[in-house]
């Protein structure tokens, strides 16, 4: 029997970026907030001995424990879905800060084009640019409407950057801190892209170029370029993360309480409202019901979708009939690019997660697609994150993968190889979706989330096109040998790609084609909010978190308003 706990104003499920932002904003507004996090409490003091590639990057110390819960995967509806038994393709977060603890810090705002992609594509290329198998739709919110929330996140996180990209949406204010250092490796890219006529700029970064105090009074220190950023926590508190910004802000108000080892299993619905959530204290084994005026799901793409499905809230998407919205428009990302082998040695082992330069000449609709068989594109970047020796063994095609020749080549190339990579946008397809698995269960007895996903022709064409451009840039950079990324075929769960999963709980202007409204308020339950990259109706040519955070700020504003006046926010 579950124990029912006294009602609070807001219960937030998950304490990553989205949960942290909602908690801080609501607590500042005077609402009593409880945050339930399945993982443990952790902070900067836990990252003092973190320069350990094996434990943290290879064995995934900070990430989700799949023995408790995973997803099942298949490429299409005809295949039996099987569990993702080991982490690999994407790395799910766990514990205070979620993936915001071990992210890189690339911080982007999606393009004005992204938010109105359907309208703008139809206007420019006619209604049949993509076949009807692609479920393109506008987001129900525009870039201009989101601009103040984007800036709010820039300020909270102290983002380091320069407003020199001629293509991106207009910024009302410049970045709070200057860009990171231009290293010789970045300068190579800068020179090459300039001479090709492109417009390079420093990648907006949450690894701060200088110490900064945010409007809430939280201090973020300056990045030391230690080279252990992605997949690691920052020992300096120099990589903006929820546990050094929004969570302490929430705590300071006195209105927020975090509960750890609290795994939420169900959202309880009654009529057109929810009453709270049921969770398990994974240490004591006790079950609780936390009642709340407002429930916020901030437990990442996968778990947000799963919680709605197991709680029977909303209509499951059916690819056969096209009906239902829950689980629809699941998208991933594709990673075109090129690798160059150089003669000179470079300091490839130094770096920071978001130390990079980019061009956007081939992102969004910044180039003409009239004669191309795809839409959108991707940001093309060089990043100097710090090559780590276990996982970086660059060898040219045709070199044996083990033995004397492998050893020699991988050691030689370790300090002589650079890569250019792109975040390729991903368009929703009617056959790509999330649902519940009928066979496999988690340790709590709930069905696993099932992913049906494959790359589409649109993905393959975009990948090929951007790879060619990356190859040209690498040539201009002076590499001795260049290898473009191998063409993509089927999506494969093995091998890290990105943790930029999107869709499943998409936002939109009406309940026919979306799960939540533009305040991320559920269409079927007015006091339930679902926040995260799951809200994206398609995936853009950037990393998601800047956009996710802006949506979270907008949603927080909606929650505060709702708690005063109730009803639908639209």
């Amino acid at each position, binding site marked *: 029997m579950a124990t029912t706990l006294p009602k609070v104003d807001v219960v937030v499920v998950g304490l990553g970026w989205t949960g942290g932002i909602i908690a801080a904003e609501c607590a500042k507004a005077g609402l009593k907030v409880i945050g339930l996090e399945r993982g443990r409490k952790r902070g900067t003091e836990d990252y003092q001995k973190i320069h350990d590639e094996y434990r943290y990057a290879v064995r995934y110390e900070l990430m989700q424990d799949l023995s408790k819960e995973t997803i099942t995967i298949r490429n299409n509806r005809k295949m039996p879905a099987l569990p993702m038994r080991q982490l690999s393709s994407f790395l799910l977060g766990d514990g205070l800060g979620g993936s915001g603890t071990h992210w890189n810090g690339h911080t982007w705002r999606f393009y004005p084009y992204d938010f109105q992609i359907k309208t703008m594509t139809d206007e420019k290329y006619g209604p049949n640019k993509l076949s009807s198998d692609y479920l393109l739709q506008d987001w129900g919110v525009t870039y201009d409407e989101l601009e103040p929330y984007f800036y709010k996140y820039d300020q909270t996180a102290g983002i380091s950057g320069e407003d020199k990209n001629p293509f991106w949406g207009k910024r009302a204010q410049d970045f709070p801190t200057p860009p990171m250092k231009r290293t010789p490796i970045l300068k190579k890219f800068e020179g090459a892209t300039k001479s090709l006529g492109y417009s390079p700029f420093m990648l907006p970064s949450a690894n701060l170029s200088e110490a900064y105090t945010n409007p809430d009074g939280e201090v973020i220190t300056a990045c*030391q370029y230690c080279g252990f950023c992605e997949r690691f926590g920052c020992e*300096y508190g120099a990589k903006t993360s929820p546990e050094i910004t929004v969570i302490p802000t929430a705590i300071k108000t006195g209105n927020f309480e975090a509960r750890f080892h609290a795994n939420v299993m169900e959202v309880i619905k009654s009529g057109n409202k929810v009453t709270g959530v049921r969770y398990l204290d994974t240490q004591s084994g006790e079950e609780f019901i936390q009642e709340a005026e407002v429930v916020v799901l901030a437990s990442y793409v996968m778990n947000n979708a799963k919680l709605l499905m197991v709680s029977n809230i909303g209509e499951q998407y059916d690819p056969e009939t096209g009906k239902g919205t829950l689980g629809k428009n699941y998208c991933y990302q594709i990673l075109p690019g090129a690798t160059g082998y150089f003669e000179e040695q470079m300091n490839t082992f130094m770096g920071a997660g978001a130390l990079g330069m980019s061009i956007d000449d081939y992102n969004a609709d910044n180039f003409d697609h009239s004669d191309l068989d795809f839409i959108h594109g991707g940001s093309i970047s060089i990043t100097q994150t710090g090559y780590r020796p276990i996982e970086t063994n660059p060898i040219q095609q045709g070199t044996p993968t083990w033995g004397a020749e492998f050893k020699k080549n991988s050691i030689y190339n370790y300090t002589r190889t650079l890569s250019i990579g792109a975040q390729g946008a991903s368009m929703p397809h009617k056959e790509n979706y999330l649902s519940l698995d009928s066979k496999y269960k988690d340790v709590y007895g709930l069905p696993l989330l099932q992913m049906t996903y494959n790359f589409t022709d649109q993905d393959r064409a975009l990948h090929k096109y951007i790879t060619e451009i990356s190859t040209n840039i690498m040539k201009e950079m002076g590499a001795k040998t260049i290898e473009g990324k191998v063409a993509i075929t089927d999506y494969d769960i093995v091998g890290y790609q990105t943790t930029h999963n999107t869709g499943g709980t998409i936002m939109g202007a009406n309940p026919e084609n979306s799960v939540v409204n533009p305040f991320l308020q559920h269409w079927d339950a007015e006091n339930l909010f679902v926040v995260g990259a799951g809200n994206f109706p398609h995936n853009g040519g950037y990393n998601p978190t800047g956009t996710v955070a802006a949506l979270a700020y907008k949603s927080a504003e909606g929650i505060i308003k709702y708690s005063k006046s109730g009803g639908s926010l639209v």
Partner: protein
Amino acid sequence: MTEKPKNYSRRDFLKTTGIATGALIGGGLIGGLVGLNANKTDQEVSEGTINHEMATNQGFQFFQNQREFDVLSNATERIFPKDDLGPGAIDLGVPYFIDRQLAAQYGSNTKEYMHGPFAVGAKTQGYQSRLTRASIFRQGIAQLEEEASKRFEKGFSSLEAEQMDEILTAFQNDEVPMTGVTSAFFFRLLRTATLEGAYADPMYGGNRNMDGWKMKEFPGHQMAYINVIEEEKFQKIEPKSLSGM
């Protein structure tokens, strides 16, 4: 929550770190910066004797007999052989690294989804075996022995290098029957574990004397590169292990 330092500029932060925020970041930053400037000499005991002693004196945590361990050792050495660049897997302690890992979380797949039903599945669906890594290694090593006696009427460890390579290649190409797992998968596991042992921090028992890092010119655990990140010149930095902190 941890107390945060006040809003220092980067310069101040570096200058005053040891005094003002020593508790927050520990001695690490200072050590790192001193190391960068002074490049103090490696204090680890240098090669030779200690290698040999460590190589024979460690005992097993997972393996039960010398024969299995020797097969593993020889196989890893073929994957990452000693050459004019420096030591191979055996001298780096890779077999001991793997022995310890097999006895720990890694060997028993404690962070992985191991519930049935099990099915083979498509390649794109990844690892689907009911076997733990520990059982895969045990079976794989037995199979290496078996294949050696089938092909050459000898134990694996008594073969010539080329003969070992022939067998390992057969595993890599999935030509050897195994139960509950493919030989190609076992080979991939073995190869990956060998590289992990060659390049993981020496505190795990491999990468002895940080020689893996030295060959690759990777400086290991340094606290900061802020002072040199803009240098054009390649930086040769004496590596540091976490165990030396």
